[in-house]
């Protein structure tokens, strides 16, 4: 095992463990903090796969913007209670059984698949130059349309949060 494999297993373990803690911690504020750890581990995976630009964007968008939105909403709604009503026990057991079935289905479908061989000249496709070249040539129209999506999302969010809708 070389150093990158150690980093890979460490990041994977960190991501899965903190994802489990997101689901099972009682306080929503702790869920948000564990989710930030998960996002940083996934950003580390992106760096490992030489997608440096996406790693930076991932940290800025998720750990910077989305998590602040979550924390701000929890603060405004005052939801940081330790005791939150849980689902019934039989529903939790059914959910875990359903998760097991889902995992069996996914892993079973992966088992027979043939492993893809890495392309020799794949290094350096995650740089800003390569991504920008593709984004502003091949995907120019979706890029512009996404700005309209953001505009409509902004108008919708402001309109929905107004006190008196009428």
């Amino acid at each position, binding site marked *: 095992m070389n150093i990158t494999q150690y980093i890979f297993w460490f990041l*994977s373990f960190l991501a899965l463990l903190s994802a489990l803690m997101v689901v099972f911690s009682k306080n929503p504020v702790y869920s948000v903090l564990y989710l930030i750890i998960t996002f940083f581990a996934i950003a580390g995976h992106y760096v490992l796969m030489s997608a440096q630009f996406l790693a930076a964007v991932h940290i800025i968008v998720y750990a910077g913007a989305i998590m602040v939105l*979550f924390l701000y909403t929890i603060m405004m709604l005052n939801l940081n209670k330790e005791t*939150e*009503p849980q689902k019934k026990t039989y529903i939790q057991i059914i959910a875990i059984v359903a998760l097991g079935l889902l995992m069996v289905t996914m892993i079973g479908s992966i088992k027979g698949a043939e492993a893809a061989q890495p392309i020799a000249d794949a290094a350096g496709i995650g740089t800003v130059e390569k991504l920008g070249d593709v984004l502003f040539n091949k995907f120019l129209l979706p890029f512009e349309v996404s700005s309209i999506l953001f505009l409509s999302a902004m108008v919708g969010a402001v309109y929905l949060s107004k006190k008196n809708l009428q």
Partner: protein
Amino acid sequence: MQEVISGIPLVNYIYISAALFGIGALGVMVRRNAIVLFMCIELMLNAVNLLLVAFSSYLGDTSGQVFVFFIMAVAAAEVAVGLAILIMIYRNANTTDTEVLNQLKW
């Protein structure tokens, strides 16, 4: 960076993405707080993003990473609108418990 890709088989990334997606789905099924449900949906989106980046790196195709870029944009818009809806629900129903918000339940 090339020895990273050859040192770790692609199937490892598939298993980790599947596990992350499963944990997110479990959270949606188990939890009752709507904000935590949103976080679990973010977990599932991130699992798919990780898989897309892995395939894009292993196959040497930039389009996968551009897709991840767009998924991040849509996720940000979705969270903004979703949390606004959640605040409005909290104002009307005074709770974010999904067991209480069952007026559309058959």
